[in-house]
């Protein structure tokens, strides 16, 4: 018995005929008209119209604050992300993260409805905290908000205090909070606000003797492989460290036949002690702005931002870590560097001169731009829906440092429908972006290299690091092998078909 998949089944004649019959009721446009409009959308004229729109986003590459907040919160030991607001949002955050990581994700909503809109969300908060604490036994409940709680102006601080005073949660249960309305910033802003909320809350009054460690804040980083790689590298270097927040085991937990609600995270004691580290290093800038400012001012620590994506950035990362900690860079890491450089040299000829379009979060884009230029790829269109002026300037500064960046144009606040126009009027060879960029792949037939978030339609990519020298090798792998795949695909009916390259 042959089970036909949908892509085969619906191409069969009986279905194609059915689709034709259905048109009788659909009031479709004449095929000519559709074709004309389709061609028009590829023109300069359309691009201009598209770029003059001001009031609508079409296929934007950003999500909202509370998603970043719950993601951040989940990375602390025994912590339940707790969202004050309407319940649909949490269902969305959970399914969004499930679909990216292919992992369970627990978060709680206070299920606010019309009555809360009128009377405020205090009752929801009180009952929600009691239920969540009793049922799910968290070590910490990290509270963030949705649009609803923000619009009606719920006072989180007062609500949590009341909850303690009424005894629905213990006095000493940590309940940090952050205001994270969806109408401000994006998921990276939410990550920042929650991180600052948690750190400022749990470290208050904990300033003591320096602990000799460094803190690392990865930022809104959805590569679980990055967290493991970071820990491996710092361990090899002998650097004592605390990763804030460590989501690696939350979103990549071993299958043991048991479901754990809290399968890992930054140990609570370490998080509390982070105030006593010698420095806090962020691996992303735009998702940690407020947090790093807070740490610098309140904790008085050094707060460099070092993003180890690509060779040069990784070199800088190790040099700086070495300077801060006084630990030399071990031979083992030097060897890894050598292997990464070797891989780059081997693959360089295939990537050199290829034209790239990029879309994604600001910090990731900066890393990938740097890497692609090192590989001799030409940056053409760089689109960042959640980028700001500072990012735009930083990206241009980076691009101007290499001839491969000379043609690159940066578009902040733009979306994938803008990018579609750009890719039709000024085509590129390859596109780098998340799974939704696949609509652009489909429309323009530009091969897509999946780097970013979310990645729904391919499995396991997040398990591979893209940071450090091993990350360089992975990036080289994904990029060059897409180039080679594409060359092969084009030779399918020609003589230029090679087995050895």
């Amino acid at each position, binding site marked *: 018995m042959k089970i036909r998949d949908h892509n085969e089944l619906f191409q069969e004649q009986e279905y194609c005929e059915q689709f034709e019959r259905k048109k009788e009721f659909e009031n479709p446009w004449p095929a000519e008209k559709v074709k004309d409009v389709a061609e028009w959308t590829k023109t300069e004229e359309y691009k201009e119209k598209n770029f003059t729109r001001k009031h609508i986003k079409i296929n*934007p590459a950003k999500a909202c604050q509370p998603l970043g907040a719950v993601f951040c919160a989940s990375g602390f030991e025994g912590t339940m992300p707790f969202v004050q607001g309407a319940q649909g949002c949490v269902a969305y955050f959970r399914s969004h993260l499930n679909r990216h990581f292919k992992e369970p994700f627990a978060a*709680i909503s206070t299920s606010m*409805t019309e009555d*809360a809109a009128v009377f405020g969300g205090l009752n929801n908060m009180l009952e*929600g905290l009691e239920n969540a604490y009793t049922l799910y036994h968290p070590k910490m409940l990290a509270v963030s908000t949705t649009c*609803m709680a923000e619009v009606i102006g719920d006072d989180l601080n007062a609500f949590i205090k009341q909850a303690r005073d009424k005894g629905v949660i213990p006095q000493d249960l940590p309940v940090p909070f952050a205001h994270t*309305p969806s109408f401000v910033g994006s998921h990276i802003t939410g990550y920042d606000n929650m991180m600052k909320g948690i750190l400022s809350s749990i470290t208050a009054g904990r300033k003591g003797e320096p602990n000799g460690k460094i803190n690392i804040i990865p930022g809104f980083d959805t590569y679980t492989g990055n967290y493991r790689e970071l820990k491996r590298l710092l361990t090899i270097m002998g650097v004592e460290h605390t990763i804030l927040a460590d989501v690696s085991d939350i979103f990549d937990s071993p299958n043991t*036949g048991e479901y754990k609600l809290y399968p890992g995270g930054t140990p609570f004691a370490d998080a509390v002690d982070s105030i006593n580290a010698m420095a806090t290093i962020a691996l992303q800038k735009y998702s940690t702005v407020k947090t790093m400012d807070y740490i610098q001012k309140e904790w008085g620590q050094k707060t460099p931002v070092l993003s180890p994506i690509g060779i040069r950035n990784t070199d800088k990362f190790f040099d700086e870590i070495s300077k801060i900690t006084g630990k030399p860079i071990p031979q083992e890491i030097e060897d890894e560097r050598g292997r990464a450089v070797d891989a780059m040299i081997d693959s360089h000829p295939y990537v050199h001169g290829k034209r790239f379009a990029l879309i994604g979060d600001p910090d990731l884009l900066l890393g990938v731009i740097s890497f692609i230029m090192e590989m001799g790829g030409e940056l053409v269109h760089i689109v960042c829906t959640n980028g700001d002026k500072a990012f735009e300037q930083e990206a241009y500064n980076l691009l101007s440092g290499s001839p491969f960046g000379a043609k690159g144009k940066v578009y902040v606040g733009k979306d994938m429908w803008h990018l579609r126009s750009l890719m039709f009027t000024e085509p590129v060879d390859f596109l780098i972006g998340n799974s939704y960029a696949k609509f652009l792949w489909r429309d323009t037939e530009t091969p897509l290299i999946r780097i970013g978030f979310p990645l729904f339609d391919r499995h396991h990519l997040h398990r591979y690091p893209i940071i450090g020298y091993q990350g360089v090798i992975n990036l080289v792998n994904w990029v060059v092998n897409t180039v080679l795949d594409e060359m092969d695909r084009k030779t399918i009916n020609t003589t230029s078909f090679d087995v050895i390259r």
Partner: protein
Amino acid sequence: MSTAIKETQKMIEEVLEAYPEKTKKDRTKHLAANDPTGQCSTCQVKSNVKSRPGVMTVRGCAFAGAKGVVWGPVKDQITISHGPIGCGQYSWWARRNYYNGQTGIDTFGTMHITTDFQEKDIVYGGDKDLYEALHELKELFPLARGIGILSECPVGLIGDDIEAVSKKTSKELGIPIVPVRCEGFRGVSQSLGHHIANDTIRDYILGKGQLEKSTPYDVALIGDYNIGGDAWSSRKMLEELGLRVIAQWTGDASINEMGIANKAKLNLVHCYRSMNYICRHMEETYGIPWVEFNFFGPTKIYQSLRKIASYFDDAIKENAEKMIEKYKPMMDAVIEQYRPRLEGKKVMLYVGGLRPRHTIGAYEDLGMEVVASGYEFGHNDDYKRTYPDIKEGTVIMDDATLYELEEFTRRLRPDMVGSGIKEKYSYHKIGVPFRQMHSWDYSGLQSV
């Protein structure tokens, strides 16, 4: 009370022990041991009421129901997620509602279009921007047959008048512009979103389409979202039966089809929960009868074909018998292949609108037994339809929490669980085979 019911009731009480008193009292009303007669008032579960805060409900919101389920799949209109960025992003093609057409040109199903509210919109209102946005869309997408404005929480809270903007702009642009008040804080689940969406279809679309000629065999296929193409598969069966499907709601639906459904001789309803409202309206206003059917698994398909045919003449009835005769060997072969492996295996279901009862027959055809079933957002009438289909003592769950699902799994030891994406991976961790029941191809003779 039978032993089966007593035993289940005892297990439910044990599970409920973990809750604080008030929540325990509330949750008690939502869990029951099945009494197939449906008579016993204490064994009926309470449904369609608010979830308790802080218990990790699986439910979504009215926006999810209106945009993600009902309006989103309509292919030739543009659907705007009106408000901040998140809701549109997370509902962006989250179900596989297949359609034919050229996306971004004459169809728009897989697009995520939003007014992307910023703080200033919250303070000053978003109406002006919305008006401009509608004009921009018409210019960029001249072939759109309509625009739906699906409002997110802040729009309702700040009191924007999207109806007025829609009315004015609809006149200017000459296409239907439908304001859908589906803010997420309304109601207790997705279900209200379905209802709100149905009401707007009624008010803005129904009766306004063009149909050249009618036949006695015209039907509308309602409450099928073409997930993975299953509405096409259902349509194929209905056509083979000799019927003419003049409208398909809302998977692969066009505005015109939705505008002519009132000319059908019979409405065929698959997802009763999401679409009963519009069927009742068409019955009251146009006198169109409606009938529920179930195309999951051969037994239910045979029953449904006969049931649908019973509304038509002998020729159609004969066709039903011919189809059953034609497809039965194919169905029997499937059962023959799989039943030996599945006989006696236990299934636990926890899904949305129709599958907790519609798929029972399909499992039974394969020799499997449903040991627990429940709805995320079912109403009393859904449960009443479910009780008789399930064995005595089976656990019935309404708005189950993550904790309850885990505990029932531990105690009932099902061999398979059918639920949604949020539940999927925790079942992978505990090693219970799992079927995602929200987004795969599942109905019709082609997909058995």
